[in-house]
């Protein structure tokens, strides 16, 4: 059934009556990225004020495809069980040309992973789970109907002006994190502009409710008969709500195309007449980002920093990875454990990730809406070849699904160890006793000791790893033993087959200084 949008309560903030004590972190925007950041900071002991202009979760399904990495992040924040219970996991995608299926792919569950490769769940459900956690956390001061109207950064902090139903007030904080989305007011107030490309393609997205029992698969059509030679995408979500994305082409008028009398006949051609239209929106493709994500004491994360076309689910998943990358760094700098330069590594690493997401998404966009001439010729012939030759299927691009960026790093490495767990990559999961390796990692930097004793290094807890087939495949390869230095965000910083305490301490120092 359609989602009921109950408002969260507004409470008059203390700053309306008297100046508030200086805060450590103010987060602007309580969407998925802001909420994940606040929860991650809280579990590291860092309090934050989370300002939200509205008082309800997002309207419509919006970001609805959550990657394995996002599910792992949700697990650390304590909402994975709810997300897994409510969401629709999937691994099979079908790609059609015209009205024929030309091939299917299976992302395949691996017994080494706790989480499915992908799971569909409307953004409003995820925001609800995150908001409930945030409201219950004493370290998070979540304020609804608190709209930022001014921001004034200086060398050591930020002054924020906020409007509420009861008037305006000001807050001071050491850092402000702008998680206020694609139309970020913070970005506009600081007069920062996006660099990149605005595509002319427009897409219509709709949530429809129907009783049918379509399989939990991703269906993508190039030039379907039911939609005038444009692309279409169908996903199953929770509560019998299906998500449909239809390409409209460059000349579509968003207002006109959003009218139910225009939308309903289009959708009828995909799924038949028995459905209720729950939500509809039209958007244009954009591949753009801020030149820098860190502007002194104002830091951008999620859509406020980068806009990425949706095929590949790289927008919100990328945004959660921003928050994941930033949380431990911000906490360590505020605690005096790390120098402020650690924050610069957030900029370096997440700009690299945004560029990768933009590169992948631009290519997918080009493939879906090729320019006339040679671009269309090759697109069409790849689709024709994919019907008869398996090799051409790799070229068919209906969106390259989000995987975590592997950060550029010169952290110590050993070529005998498997590529999947090289420095810069997120530590792959593996079963450990009755539980899982990622769940055992904790919130601090850690040294994994596999088939060996770890040398003692100050301020570095050691996790002895149980050896099983997944650990051999993902962490040992041809080596009989290994040591892995893992960052607080579960990214591998360095690894060795053999190392002494001095080498490990050197890599640990580089980790806390944010050196590449």
């Amino acid at each position: 059934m359609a989602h009921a949008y109950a408002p969260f309560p507004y409470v008059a903030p203390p700053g309306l009556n008297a100046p508030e004590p200086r805060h450590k972190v103010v987060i602007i925007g309580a969407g998925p990225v802001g909420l994940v950041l606040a929860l991650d900071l809280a579990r590291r002991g860092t309090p934050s004020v989370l300002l939200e202009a509205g008082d309800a979760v997002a309207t419509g399904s919006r970001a609805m495809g959550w990657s394995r990495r996002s599910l792992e992040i949700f697990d650390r924040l304590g909402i994975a069980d709810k997300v897994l219970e409510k969401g629709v996991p999937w691994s099979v995608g079908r790609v059609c040309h015209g009205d024929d299926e030309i091939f299917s792919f299976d992302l395949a569950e691996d017994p080494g992973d706790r989480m499915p490769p992908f799971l569909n769940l409307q953004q409003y459900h995820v925001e609800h789970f995150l908001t409930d956690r945030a409201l219950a956390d004493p370290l998070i001061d979540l304020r609804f109907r608190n709209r930022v109207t001014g921001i004034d950064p200086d060398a050591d902090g930020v002054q924020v002006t906020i409007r509420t139903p009861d008037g305006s007030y000001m807050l001071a904080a050491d850092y402000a994190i702008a998680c206020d989305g694609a139309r970020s007011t913070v970005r506009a107030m600081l007069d920062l502009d996006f660099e990149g490309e605005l595509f002319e393609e427009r897409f219509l997205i709709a949530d429809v409710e129907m009783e049918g029992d379509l399989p939990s698969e991703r269906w993508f059509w190039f030039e379907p008969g039911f939609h005038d030679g444009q692309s279409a995408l169908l996903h199953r979500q929770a509560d019998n709500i299906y998500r449909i994305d239809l390409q409209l082409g460059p000349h579509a008028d968003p207002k006109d195309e959003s009218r139910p009398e225009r939308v309903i006949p289009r959708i009828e051609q995909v799924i038949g007449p028995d459905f209720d239209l729950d939500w509809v929106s039209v958007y244009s493709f954009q591949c753009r980002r801020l030149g820098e994500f860190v502007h002194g004491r104002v830091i951008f994360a999620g859509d406020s920093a980068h806009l990425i076309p949706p095929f590949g689910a790289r927008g919100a998943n990328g945004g959660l990875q921003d928050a994941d990358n930033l949380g431990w760094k911000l906490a360590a700098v505020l605690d005096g454990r790390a120098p402020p330069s650690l924050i610069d590594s957030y900029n370096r690493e997440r700009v690299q990730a945004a560029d990768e997401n933009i590169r992948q998404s631009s290519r997918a966009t080009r493939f879906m809406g090729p320019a006339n001439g040679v671009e269309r010729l090759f697109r069409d012939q790849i689709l024709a070849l994919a019907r008869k030759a398996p090799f051409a299927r790799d070229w068919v691009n209906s969106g390259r699904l989000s995987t975590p960026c592997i950060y550029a790093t010169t952290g110590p490495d050993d070529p005998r160890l498997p590529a999947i767990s090289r420095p810069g990559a997120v530590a792959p999961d593996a079963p450990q006793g009755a539980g899982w390796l990622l769940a055992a990692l904790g919130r601090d930097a850690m040294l994994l000791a596999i088939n060996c004793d770890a040398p003692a290094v100050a301020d570095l807890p050691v996790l002895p790893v149980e050896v099983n087939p997944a650990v051999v495949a993902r962490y040992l390869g041809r080596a009989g033993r290994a040591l892995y230095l893992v960052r607080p965000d579960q990214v591998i910083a360095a690894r060795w087959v053999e190392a002494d305490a001095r080498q490990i301490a050197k890599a640990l120092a580089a980790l806390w200084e944010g050196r590449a």
Partner: protein
Amino acid sequence: MSLIDTPNIDDPDDFLAELLAAHRGLTEAQSHALNAQLLLILANHVGDPAVLRAALALARQR
């Protein structure tokens, strides 16, 4: 391996005749489609990105 830019087909005249025969009866658009498919098939067969880049450079050379 580097790009072979010296003769490598036993009977080049035969191949050219077969190539042109494959295009016989096609419209210009169909011919373009056939060439595009042929290029993709052969590129996949070659595989080596260095060889493919060298081939692209040679084709672009005036």
